[in-house]
C-alpha cells in the first residue's frame, strides 16, 4: 500500500483470503456437500492415462532442447502408441503427419515462432 493511502494492492488479497478461509471452514464443518462416488480408473484406460500424462511431461522437458520438429515427432509417435495403442510403424506415420500439419498451422499459417532447440530446427 502506498504511504497515506487507505486502500492498495493488499486490500483485495485480504478480502479474498478471508472469504476463502471462511468458505473452507464452512465446507469442512457446516455445508453438506453432495456425496460423490468416483470410481478409480483401472486396466487399459488407467495405463493410457498414466502413459499419456508421462509423455506430455517428457515433451515439456525435451522441447527446449530438441526443438519443435524432433521433440514433436517423438512425442506424437509416443502419444499415438500410448493412448491409441497403434503399432510402431503406424504410430510413427501418424506422428510424422501430425508434426507436419501442426508446423504448417502454427509456423506457416499463423507465423508463430516455434522452439528450435539445440539442433536449430
Amino acid at each position: 500500500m502506498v504511504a497515506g493511502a487507505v486502500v492498495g494492492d493488499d486490500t483485495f488479497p485480504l478480502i479474498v483470503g478471508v472469504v476463502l478461509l471462511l468458505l473452507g471452514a464452512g465446507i469442512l464443518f457446516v455445508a453438506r456437500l453432495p456425496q460423490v462416488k468416483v470410481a478409480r480408473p483401472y486396466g487399459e484406460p488407467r495405463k493410457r492415462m498414466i502413459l499419456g500424462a508421462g509423455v506430455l511431461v517428457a515433451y515439456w522437458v525435451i522441447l527446449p532442447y530438441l526443438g519443435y520438429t524432433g521433440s514433436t515427432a517423438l512425442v506424437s509417435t509416443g502419444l499415438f502408441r500410448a493412448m491409441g495403442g497403434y503399432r510402431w510403424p503406424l504410430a510413427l506415420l501418424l506422428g510424422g503427419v501430425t508434426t507436419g500439419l501442426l508446423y504448417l498451422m502454427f509456423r506457416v499459417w499463423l507465423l508463430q515462432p516455434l522452439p528450435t532447440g539445440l539442433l536449430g530446427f
Partner: protein
Amino acid sequence: MDVLGYLASGFAAALTPTNLLMAVLGSLLGTFVGVLPGLGPTAAIAILFPLTAVLAPVPAIIMLAGIYYGAMYGGSTTAILLNIPGEVASVPTCLDGYPMAQQGRGGVALGISAIGSFFAGTLGVVGLTFFAPFLADQALRFGPPEYFGLMVLAFTVIASLSAGSLAKGFAMAFLGYFISLIGLGPSTAEPRFTFDWAPLMSGVDLIALVVGLYAISEVFIGLEESRVAITQKIRNVFPRLADLREAFPAILRGTGIGFFLGLLPGCAPGVTVFMAYDAEKKLSKHPERFGKGAIEGVASPEAANNATSSAGFIPLLALGIPASAPLAVLLGGLLVYGLQPGPLLFQKNADFVWTVIASLYVGNVILLVLNLPLIGMWVWLTRIPYGILGPVILLLAFIGAYSVRNSMFDVGVSLVCGAFGFFLRRYQWPLAPLLLAFILGPLLEKYLIQSLSMSGGSPLIFFQRGISLALLVGAALLLLTSLVLVRYTSRRVKEETAEELAL
C-alpha cells in the same frame, strides 16, 4: 449514425474475405469439435482458443463466435443421433431427438434443429442489435462504484454455474480470484504471490488456464469413457411442410422463452432449454407424445438454446457479464485483445462491436447453409478413433499454449491446470466459476480500489449512489432467482439423466 447505419458498416466489414473466411472456419471447426461425442462448446473454444489468439482482434472474435455457434450445432447432432449431450443444454434435445432418430427420422430432427437454431439465433441477434446499444447508453453514467456493482452482478452468474453445490461454486470462484492475484499489483506494481520467481511476475495466462482446465483435462476424462460413433445413414435432412407447420409454433415459443430469460445475467442455456421443453409439453394437446419422438420436443429446446446464447451476447457486450462458461471464455478473448466489454465498448470500439454483431448474422446463415448439406461429413468424422483425436487435441493444446507468449512456463501452467481440472471434474467441483472469477477478478479489484479511494476507504459509497445500490440489490434478487432456476433445472436433469447438473 443510427443503429442501422452502424449495422450496415458492420456488415461491410464482416463480409470482407478475411472475416468471412474466419466465420466459415470458426463455424466448421466448432461444428467438428462439437460433433465429437461428449465435447461441448466450452471444450471447443478452449481447444481452438490459442489458434485465434495470434489473429487480429476482429477476425479472432469472429472466429471464436463461429466456434461457439458451430459447437452448439454439433452438440445437437450427437444429442439427436447418439443420445449423448455435449453439455446440459442439449439434454432436452435428446429426449425426443433420439427417439426420432430410432424411428428413422434423425435427418428430419437434425433439419428442424438447424432451422430452429437459425431462426432463434437470428432473432436473438436482432434483439442484440437494438437492445445492447440502449443498455450501453443507460450505463454510460457509470463511475467506479457502479462498475463494482456490475462486477458483483456478474458474480451472481456463479450460482447457475455451480453444478448444484453453491458452496463448491463459491469456493471455486474465490480460488479463481486468488489465481488472478498472482503477478504484479495494479496500483503499486508490487509482486503478489510470486515467491520471487520471475515467470510468475507476469501472472497466469488466461489461455494457458483455459487450455489446461478444459482441453487437456477433457482428453483424459475422455480416455475413461467408451466412445461411440454414429453408424446410421442420414438420408433426408430437409423437413416436410407438415413437419415445419408442426414445429414452427414451438420454435417461436422456444425463441421467446430463450431470449427473454437469456437477458437475465446468470440464466444459462442449460436453464432455458428445460423451461422451453416443459412449457411445450404443458401446452401440447398430446403431451403423451413427448419423450417418444415429438418434433416440438426438438424444435423448442433447440430454439431456446440458440436464443439464449444470442441473448447472452447482450449482457456480455453491453455490461461485460457472461452468462455461461463459453461466453466467459469469449469475454476472456475480448480482454486478451485489449477490449473491455461494457458500456464504453460501444463508444470506443463501435467498429469492432458492429462487425462482431454483423458476423453473428453471417455465422447463423453459414451454419444453416453449410451444415445441413455437410451432415454426412460430420457423421463420418465421429468415426475417427479417440486414439487419434486425443493425441491431436493434446498436441494442439500444448503448442497452442506455447505460441501465445512463446513461453514454456505457460505450457507448464496448462499441464498443471490440466491435471487439476481432471481431478476437479471427477469430483464434481465446477470449473466455470473459477474461470469466470479469474477473468473478472482484476476488474473487480480495480473498481473496488478506485471506489474505496474515492470514499476514503468507506464501503458505504456502494450504498449511497443510486445506480450502484440498484445494481447490488439487483444482484441479490438475481442470485435468489438463479437459485430457484438452478434448483428446478437440477431436478429436471436428475429426472432425465440421473446425473448431477453441470450447466
